[in-house]
C-alpha cells in the first residue's frame, strides 16, 4: 500500500484542533506550553464551550496565548489572573473562566491572589505550568526552582541558606476547603499527555457543574532556560522534578465518601 492511499480524509486519526489558530507559535522548540495549549483547545472543542469560555492569560511566556487559541481572552497584570478571573466569573456566571499561569506568575508575584481565589472557592479552572524557572526573562530562579538547580541568578545552584526551599504551592492549595479538585500532571510522553487531558477535561467539567476551584499543575520543561535539548530536558524533569513534585491527584472531592 502506498502512502498516498493512506493519506485520505476518511483515514484521519489525529490532527490539529480547529480552535488552534493556524499560526506558528512564539514558543521555543520543544516547549511544554505548546502541548498544554493543544490539550486546552481540544478539551474546549470536545465540550462544545468555545463560545462560553474566557481565558485569563498571565505575564510570562504564555502572555500571547490569545494569539494561539480561538476563544475570548483577557490579559491580566503579573500574577493577578485569579483576581481578574474572579471578577469575570462573578459577573458572568454562565461563562466558563480559566486562568493559565506559569510558576513565576502564580507561585511568586501572584501567590496571594491564587491562595485567596482558591480559598474563596471561586468557580475557576487554574492551569499552572511549573517549569521551575522564569523562562521568558532569561532563566532566573523561581520559587519552584529545585535545590541545587543552576539558573542565571543561581549560577552555583540554588542553596537553602540563601534562597530557601522550593515552594510546593500545589500542596498548599490542595489543603484549602474551597478547592474541589487539585492534581499534578506532566506532558512528556503520549501516556502522560492523555492523562493530563483527562485531568483538564475534568477540571472544565467541574466548572461547568459549578463545583468550585479546579487546579491542574502541569510539571513542564523549559529547555532554553535549563540549557538542554528538549529530549534531555524531559529526561532531566523525570529524574529531578518528579521527586520534588510527585505526580498524581492531590485532592478530588468527588471521590470523598
Amino acid at each position: 500500500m502506498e502512502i498516498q492511499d493512506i493519506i485520505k480524509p476518511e483515514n484521519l486519526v489525529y490532527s490539529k484542533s480547529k480552535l488552534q489558530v493556524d499560526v506558528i507559535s512564539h514558543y521555543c522548540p520543544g516547549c511544554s506550553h505548546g502541548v498544554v495549549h493543544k490539550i486546552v483547545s481540544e478539551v474546549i472543542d470536545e465540550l462544545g464551550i468555545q463560545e462560553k469560555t474566557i481565558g485569563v492569560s498571565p505575564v510570562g511566556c504564555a502572555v500571547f496565548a490569545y494569539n494561539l487559541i480561538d476563544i475570548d481572552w483577557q490579559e491580566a497584570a503579573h500574577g493577578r489572573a485569579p483576581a481578574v478571573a474572579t471578577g469575570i466569573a462573578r459577573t458572568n456566571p454562565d461563562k466558563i473562566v480559566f486562568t493559565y499561569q506559569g510558576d513565576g506568575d502564580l507561585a511568586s508575584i501572584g501567590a496571594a491572589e491564587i491562595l485567596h481565589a482558591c480559598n474563596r472557592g471561586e468557580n475557576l479552572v487554574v492551569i499552572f505550568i511549573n517549569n521551575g524557572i522564569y523562562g521568558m526573562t532569561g532563566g532566573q530562579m523561581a520559587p519552584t526552582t529545585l535545590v541545587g538547580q543552576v539558573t542565571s541568578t543561581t549560577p552555583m545552584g540554588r542553596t537553602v541558606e540563601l534562597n530557601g526551599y522550593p515552594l510546593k504551592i500545589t500542596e498548599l492549595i490542595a489543603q484549602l476547603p474551597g478547592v474541589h479538585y487539585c492534581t499534578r500532571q506532566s506532558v512528556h510522553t503520549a501516556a502522560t499527555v492523555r492523562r493530563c487531558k483527562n485531568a483538564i477535561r475534568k477540571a472544565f467539567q467541574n466548572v461547568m457543574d459549578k463545583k468550585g476551584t479546579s487546579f491542574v499543575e502541569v510539571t513542564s520543561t523549559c529547555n532554553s532556560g535549563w540549557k538542554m535539548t528538549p529530549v534531555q530536558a524531559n529526561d532531566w524533569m523525570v529524574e529531578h522534578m518528579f521527586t520534588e513534585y510527585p505526580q498524581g491527584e492531590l485532592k478530588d472531592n468527588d471521590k470523598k465518601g
Partner: protein
Amino acid sequence: MAKVRGAVVVDKEGCKGCGLCVVACPQNVLALNKDVNSRGYHYSYMANPEECIGCAHCGLVCPDTCITIYRVKL
C-alpha cells in the same frame, strides 16, 4: 505483516525540529531531516514509512501541533 498501516504528515514549515516525536515513536519511523525548512529547523519526516502503525504518539507530544496522522486497517 502489521494489521494496520499508518502515515504521518508533518507540516514542514510549522516544525521546529525539537525531536520529541522522534523519541516518542515506538516504531522508529520518524527522524529529523538533514534538510532545513525556511526558518532553518531540521524538520521531522518519515524515515521509515513502512513501519508506521498510526498510533498518534508523535502527534500527542508535538508541541507545535504540526503532525497529522492517518491510519488504515489492512
